[in-house]
């Protein structure tokens, strides 16, 4: 498809002195497609792992948490398999946050079709956004005093002081989805869920060609999917109630988060302005300066964009992060400098 950019990317990744892992970013890109192929094979062979709405072998499976909640609210019944699925999903979210969004969900991959409708590689809006994210100040310049003060705050402080909002637009959609299911008695969101629509599209196309099942759905279903995620930008960030659910539970997630090695980071080790990690993050998280980011760490999809963007290769995703307060010497040096600065003000 776009082998050119892929090659460039991998070349760039390999060119880095640090431990960048091009294999992982490739895997992340192809995994949703692999899932789609596996699901399609299951449809064709009448044996497989189901769709992401209920993924698993035969009756041992994990049901979509939103579907599980929706169906139980709608039917006013407790369904054992739905409850077990909810518990499993809750544990997964506690451990991995929104990793599903970055690695498995087919919607971001489908949304890339947007490029097919745009002239050139990226759409104008994408470019504008990237420009907006790039700070006007030149990277590499020494840090200003304020920035040093910001750096001196430990990550924990920053996270607890920032992002007090629990509810964003996705949360409202989540509430609407569950409320509507409870009022009208059917899982309303399932009707328009883009993940469901993606697999429905695959199934409809397979049936149209396989058994000649011709239906208007063949037009309506993909059209709805395109309307949601291709022409309506930012589905994931502003509307997806499943993402909202994951963010909500993910607030308690403390594992496998981007962690900066202060000894390698340009800002802490050399006192230079960088911020590449924050600019790279599609979710608006700034791993270096969490308080400047638009989103808290619970929005992290483990897409590793920050790790790939870091010129020093300082970002890793350890299972359990070391506390940054007991960090190496350079960080403390910056901290002290910032402290004296605050006193003098």
């Amino acid at each position, binding site marked *: 498809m776009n082998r050119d950019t892929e090659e460039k990317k991998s070349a760039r990744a390999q060119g880095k002195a640090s431990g960048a892992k091009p294999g992982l970013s490739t895997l992340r890109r192809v995994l949703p497609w692999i899932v789609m192929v596996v699901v399609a094979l299951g449809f064709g062979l009448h044996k497989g792992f189901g769709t992401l709405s209920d993924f698993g072998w035969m009756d041992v499976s994990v049901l979509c948490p939103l579907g599980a909640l929706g169906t139980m609210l*709608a039917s006013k019944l407790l369904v054992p398999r739905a409850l077990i699925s909810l518990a499993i999903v809750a544990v997964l979210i506690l451990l991995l946050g929104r990793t599903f969004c970055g690695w498995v969900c087919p919607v971001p991959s489908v949304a890339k079709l947007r490029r097919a409708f745009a002239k050139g590689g990226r759409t104008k809006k994408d470019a504008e956004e990237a420009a907006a994210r790039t700070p006007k100040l030149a990277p590499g310049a020494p840090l200003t005093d304020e920035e040093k003060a910001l750096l001196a705050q430990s990550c924990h402080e920053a996270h607890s002081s920032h992002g007090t909002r629990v509810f964003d*637009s996705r949360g409202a959609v989540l509430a609407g989805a569950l*409320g509507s*299911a409870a009022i009208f008695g*059917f899982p309303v969101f399932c009707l328009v869920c883009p993940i*469901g629509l993606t697999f429905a599209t695959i199934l409809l196309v397979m049936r149209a060609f396989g058994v000649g099942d011709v*239906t*208007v759905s063949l037009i309506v279903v993909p059209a709805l999917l395109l309307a949601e995620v291709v022409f309506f930008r930012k589905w994931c960030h502003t509307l997806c109630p499943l993402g909202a659910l994951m963010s909500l539970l993910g607030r308690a997630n403390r594992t496998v988060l981007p962690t900066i090695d202060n000894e390698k980071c340009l800002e802490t080790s050399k006192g230079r302005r960088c911020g590449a990690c924050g600019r790279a993050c599609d979710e608006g998280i700034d791993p270096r300066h969490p308080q400047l980011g638009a989103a808290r760490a619970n929005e992290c999809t483990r897409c590793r964009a920050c790790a790939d963007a870091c010129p020093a290769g300082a970002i890793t995703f350890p299972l359990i992060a070391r506390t940054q307060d007991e960090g190496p010497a350079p960080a403390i040096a910056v901290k002290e400098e910032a402290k004296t600065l605050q006193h003098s003000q």
Partner: protein
Amino acid sequence: MEEEKQTTETSEEDLRAKRPNISRRSMCLGIGGAAALVALGGLKYVGSTPVVRPPGGQDEDRLVSACVRCQKCYEACPRGVIAPVHVEDGILQTRTPKMYFDNGWCDFCADENGGVPLCVEVCPTRALELPAGATAQSTIIGKAAIDTDTCLAYRLTGCRFCYDACPYEAIELDEINRPVVIADKCNGCGACESVCVSLKEGSISSGATKRAIVVEPQA
């Protein structure tokens, strides 16, 4: 909160620009999205064509309230007789399961799963659920009905495919060898429909490929 405020105030303008407003735009989107979903709920009151449901899905209200359209039953069906409902049969039930007897019929997975339908077994939300002890005979999926206008046997061709196919002896031949359905014995397994050779001719217009004997949902 205070700390946050301070940070915003002391930040340079570009840093402030980077933090998008959670405010109005997001609020409008959220409320709009939530309202759209509530409006979608109103589809419950839009009419829909009754369809033949897989075993255990005969309670239409329960099926619609529980089905998350995961297509698991479709995948599990070893005979390939489950299909997603078309949008033209009703928006509310789009992509929920229906029986599709073009290429096969339902024997309650007698060979594959000892008479317990796999679709019921895999359904994660109990949208398809059979009462304890339910058998193929006791579960009425639908009832076969013959369209005497298109049935070849009613043109006295001697066709008796459906009669031969019926595993429940629910079809009899009358004195001039025309098939007649005995409704009391029929459970809607679809064996007759799957072998019927008299397709209406035509394009893809509605009902064009409907066979002369079809299983119809029970009201």
